[in-house]
């Protein structure tokens, strides 16, 4: 991945144009991916369920743009955004969502288990909080292997109720692990408001373990990116771990099938966020205001990405399912070095 933006809102916007545009494009790519995924669901072409990331794009992009391919992330049930932001390809993603052989996981994982290890994405997880240990262990491994890799652990506000988080924060703090806990506080876990399920303060919970904690507007991609860059740089030097709480909002229901949701959140609230705090609209407006791009440029970007996404969907729809013989493959992986040692021994 290319060098990242030393983004600072208001300073030399044109000088950082390339970085800004990449961030903009990545946010649009996520939105386009999700709109298509939603459509696949609504037209009954997608098996199972899926959780839309739309609305939270600035979080994934602001953070992942501060990382290299060697840096790791762990993701969640609401993971398409992280996957795209960390560099994944539309075709392999849509193939995975449709259970096709060319999917990232050969169709075995689906939406909730997309992993893309080539870009350092260790995988989505269908157990809320389930990847907190994995992320912290990846950071431990980075430290043991003597690298300067950093791991970002994405999770939702609801996941802060899982005890696992406190266990691994304690160890991360004791051993100064290069891990950043990124809590996307979108105000809800499933059909419940965060304030009903979270006592006290989330940042204080991290601070109680001696972990430096930050709060940031998760709708502002530059603010997210700027903070993350600083923390990543410090984590590389052994000053981690860190905690970031990102204020954000999910535009859709908890999952694609959660259509009638007025019993737990008001339509007004949704339209308020969409009209005033949309991360793509606002960033696009700022880019044009700053003269980085024209409105027409933005439209063109949008059109191009939408076309890409639709082509990828068409590709995935036409792609092959895995052969029946794959059903009992990959339960175990081979151990060629062990096998060689064993056959040498018996020889």
């Amino acid at each position, binding site marked *: 991945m290319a060098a990242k933006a030393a983004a600072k809102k208001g300073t030399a916007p044109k000088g950082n144009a390339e970085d800004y545009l990449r961030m903009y494009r990545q946010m649009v790519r996520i939105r386009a991916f999700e709109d298509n995924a939603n459509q696949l669901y609504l037209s009954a072409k997608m*098996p*199972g*369920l899926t959780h839309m990331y739309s609305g939270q794009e600035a979080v994934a992009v602001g953070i992942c743009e501060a990382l290299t391919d060697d840096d790791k992330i762990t993701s969640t049930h609401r993971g398409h955004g992280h996957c795209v932001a960390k560099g994944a390809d539309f075709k392999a993603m849509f193939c995975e969502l449709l*259970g*096709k052989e060319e999917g990232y*996981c*050969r*169709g*075995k*994982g*689906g*939406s*909730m*288990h997309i992993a893309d290890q080539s870009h350092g994405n260790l995988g989505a*997880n*269908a*157990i*809320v*909080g*389930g990847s907190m240990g994995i992320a912290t262990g990846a950071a431990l491994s980075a430290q043991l292997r003597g690298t300067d890799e950093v791991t970002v652990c994405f999770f939702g506000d*609801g*996941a802060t*109720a*899982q*005890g696992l988080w406190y266990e691994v924060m304690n160890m991360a703090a004791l051993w100064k692990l290069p891990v950043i806990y990124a809590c996307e506080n979108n105000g809800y*876990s*499933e*059909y*419940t408001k965060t304030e*009903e*399920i*979270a006592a006290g303060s989330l940042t204080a919970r991290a601070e109680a373990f001696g972990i430096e904690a930050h709060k940031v507007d998760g709708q502002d991609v530059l603010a997210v990116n700027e903070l993350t860059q600083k923390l990543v740089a410090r984590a590389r030097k052994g000053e981690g771990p860190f905690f970031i709480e990102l204020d954000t909002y999910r535009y859709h229901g908890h999952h694609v099938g959660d259509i009638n949701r007025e*019993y*737990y959140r008001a339509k007004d609230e949704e339209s308020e966020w969409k009209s005033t705090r949309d991360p793509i609209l606002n960033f696009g407006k700022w880019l044009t205001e700053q003269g980085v791009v024209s409105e027409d440029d933005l439209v063109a970007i949008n059109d191009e990405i939408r076309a890409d996404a639709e082509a990828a969907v068409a590709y995935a729809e036409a792609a092959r*399912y*895995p052969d*029946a013989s*794959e*059903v*009992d493959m990959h*339960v175990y992986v081979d151990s060629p070095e062990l096998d060689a040692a064993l056959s040498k021994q018996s020889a």
Partner: protein
Amino acid sequence: MREITLSKAVNEAIAEEMRRDPTVFLIGEDVAEAGTPFKVLAGLVEEFGTKRVIDTPISEPGFTGMAVGAALTGSRPIVDLMFGDFIFLIMDQLCNQAAKACYMSGGKLNVPLVLRTNLGATRRSAAQHSQSLHALVAHIPGLKVAMPSSAYEAKGLMKTAIRDNNPVVIFEDKLMYQDKAPVPEEEYLIPFGKANIKREGTDITLIGTSSMVQVAEKAAALLEKDGISAEVIDPRTIVPLDEETILASVRKTSRAIVIDEGHQSYGVTGEIASRISEKAFYHLDAPVLRMGAMDVPVPFSPALEDLTVPTPEAVAERARQSVRGELFDAA
């Protein structure tokens, strides 16, 4: 008789017991206003209020542990675990605490707790939302394990579970929530440890659990066309297990297949098959066959997932082989 869905049957069972006994309460994620993602508990919070239908944070070990504590001190909690796969998160509270409190205290403590959760694949929910993990809890003494196979069974077994003074884990098949069956308006309980002979037959015994009872019944219908008379048995509870009814059937038919949606190895089929093989040894004309789910994590892709669970056709085919004596040659 009126027909209602399994979902409604569970809802009725819980509502009736909550009306009868003020110490019964529900606890779990999104059980109140949302009525669970499967909507099974819809309406209960309106009747019983948020003190008795308690929405929790996403803290499965925490609220299960709390239910154990509540059960030890005069309450009768029903824990709602949204997916059976999450049972891995609560094993310590369930198996080290709830299951053992009575024994470890020499009978002075007891834990009247119901854990309601689910099982079942083919919902395209992938490996962490599709497991059928009932064998794990069946292995732990101190727990009872119920496996309803229809709306009728679900209601009766749930009511019994709530009144049992021991921890009971009840696995509903999440694909059956909308299945309807005749359920009487009048109250009834279904005793634990008494198998149900769903269909009588003379040539082979098919023992199925949960939705595999339906698979067995469909297989029996297929077999009938071939002139093979299959007896179908639903154990209803796998702990306690009604060995006698199963053995009596196999002693009569001389052949058996055990069908279960848990992974085949180290699971339910091995237990029941080995008991039959040991205790009806003299009567067997063919090896007892086992049909569990494949020993693979549940794949997401529909093209693969459907291959992992027993089907009526596959059961019927194995039964035919058994009756024809083909399996003897294989041994």
